[in-house]
């Protein structure tokens, strides 16, 4: 798949899944906006990897849960690359995936949910509102939201995180219905446990083994595994797919 001449913006692309997605787009010739919030160093490393891969990349620091932050991120990307063809909403509120130290439901405050909603739905909402006007000038675009397979199979019940991601799937569907007639597709990619990432570094081996044994493809996802379906959903190969959720978890969830 050749993305040369395409402009892609990935939020939360400094590390982990976001970084792998940015690098994969760069490998296919895209211009990539690499958004990050706190760690300039890892973002710079992503940009360097993108450029080694043959693409053009730009690191942009911005808080996408904030409307102005999202607007600035989009304007800077358009200033650098002229347009936005693909938006990948990958950023989320920091969350520690530790099955042994997770909060039980009766320990949760509403604020925990609120915080995850902001990181998932509000961030995506801000980004979509900022980026869609540019996509409309061509009546063409692809938006990909990153969720989790925990919404379908809560192997570990991370209530606040998974509920917010489930809301993101609803957000994807209504948005797909709204933007389809305007030429823009919206889909969700729902990864299973991805290792290694910053968020998953504390997951114990026995949990990983349990997941591996229940997974038909008998392994845990790598960040690069997530990039393939994202590129597919960004490409004309998926021109007639919108409002869908693609699980990328080796078959743990089947729908």
């Amino acid at each position, binding site marked *: 798949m050749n993305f040369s001449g395409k402009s892609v913006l990935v939020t939360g692309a400094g590390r982990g899944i976001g970084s792998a997605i940015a690098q994969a787009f760069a490998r296919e010739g895209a211009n990539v906006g690499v958004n990050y919030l706190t760690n300039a160093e890892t973002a710079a490393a992503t940009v360097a990897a993108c450029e080694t891969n043959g693409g053009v990349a730009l690191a942009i620091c911005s808080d996408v849960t904030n409307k102005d932050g999202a607007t600035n991120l989009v304007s800077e990307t358009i200033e650098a690359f002229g347009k936005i063809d693909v938006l990948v909403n990958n950023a989320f509120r920091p969350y520690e995936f530790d099955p042994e130290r997770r909060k039980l439901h009766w320990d949760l405050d509403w604020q925990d949910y609120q915080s995850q909603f902001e990181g998932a739905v509000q961030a995506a909402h801000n980004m979509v509102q900022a980026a869609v006007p540019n996509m409309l000038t*061509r009546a063409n675009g692809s938006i990909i939201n990153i969720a989790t397979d925990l919404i379908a199979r809560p192997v570990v019940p991370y209530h606040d995180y998974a509920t917010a991601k489930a809301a993101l799937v609803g957000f994807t569907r209504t948005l797909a219905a709204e933007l389809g007639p*305007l030429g823009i597709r919206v889909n969700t990619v729902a990864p299973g446990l991805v290792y290694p990432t910053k968020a998953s570094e504390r997951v114990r081996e026995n949990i990983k083994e349990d997941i591996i044994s229940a997974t038909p493809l008998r392994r845990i996802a790598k960040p690069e595994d997530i990039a393939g379906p994202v590129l597919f959903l960004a490409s004309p190969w998926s021109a007639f797919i919108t409002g869908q959720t693609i699980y990328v978890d080796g078959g743990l969830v089947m729908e």
Partner: protein
Amino acid sequence: MTTDVEYVGRLHGLDPERIHWEPRQYGGDGEKSLIALTPNLQSADLSIIASKVRLNARNSVKTWPVDRVLTAIDQTVARLLDRSHPVRKKMEHLLPIVTGYDEEMVRIGLTGYLKTFRKPQLQRFITEDFPNPGILDKFQPLVKGGFGRAFGPDLLAHVWAGNVPGLPLWTLIAGLLVKAASVGKVATAEPFFAGWFHDVLAETDPELAKTIALVWWQGGNTELEAGLFREADVALAYGGDTAIAALAAQAPASTRFLAHGHKISFGLIGREALDPSRASSTARKAAYDVVRYDQQGCYSPHVFFVEKGGAISPETFGTYIAQSLASYEEKFPRRPLSLAEASSLVEWRMAEETRLGGKVVEPCNGNWTVSIQLQDRALRPSGLNRTIRIVAVDDLEETPILSKPYKTLIQTAAISATPERLFNLASMLGEVGVTRVTALGDMTSPEAGWHHDGRFNLLDLVRITEIEARAETAAEDLASYAD
């Protein structure tokens, strides 16, 4: 590679062996193509053909009740609607090669078009102009007193354009209904349809088919044009302004010359149609009007005036149209453009883009273009071939003024607005020259019996002979039973 061969023209009265037939190729090399054999005609040939069809008509249709003509046309059209009929199959197969239009569009277009010529529609067609169709057969009492009878021309000449497949059917059928003999000059761009209609008519009513002759020459041959018009009582011509003016110059004063020149059409979309539940379906209908026959028809839209103040802005509405054009492109791809068409389109696009408040939405292959104009409100023509202008207006009621400078050029207006506004706008638009108001999505399929360019299709062709009431009274004096 498959190549079909088709004769152009139906030359009653001439020996085909004596004619020199020249081949012309339609369709690309290496793909499906079609060889047309075109007759090389002289002015004297036209006189022979004209005399022959005139005589044939005198001996047949002129003496028949109009109902027989209706039945013959109805049966002919029924055969052409039957997708298993050999001529219908030929139309579906060859018209896309000849015109470049997508096969599906041609197939759906043919059915939609032909079904407007079934008997009930034909009856409506006649009644529009003759409330008492019996006037075409016999003297009928007139409201003012006395009697009247309508006589069609002895010979009706047609010069057709090739922009829309099937175009000749309108005037051919009009000629049959007024019992005229016809000589039609087919267009180089699409010279076959009229002949195929003739052939199926010959199956259902051979005598009637002998009243229709079809001829061809390269447009602009003034000698043959003058020759044809000299033979005709009434001449009907389609074409661009220059072509029409050149043709008109060839018509003698004694021939009634009726022309259908270039027209442009447009749509009006009120804010009441621009809410989230309606806007996208409204846009889809509007896009359909743009896609059908790639805007080559007189009824095809060039501009959609879109009212501000609705929940969906004119700009967003333009994007809805863009997406609909993109999806129609998948279903009915645009025909390949000639170099001249493509370059004039590029020129048009650049002019649109540089207008103040203008922007252009199009895909990278350029197969359609939406020009959204937020400031320039003029009724400018589109670049044709799936290019459309979206012009933002504060109120739809401004649009009649905007279209006024084009009074002689405008034809159809599609209106999407409340019933009150529909009538109000229609009356304002009628004043500035619009002759047909329709719904979005229906711009390219006029109703049976429409008054093309605001004229009477049949009434314009006939002359009425009246028996005044006084003649009747005077005759009474001479009756055998007179006291």
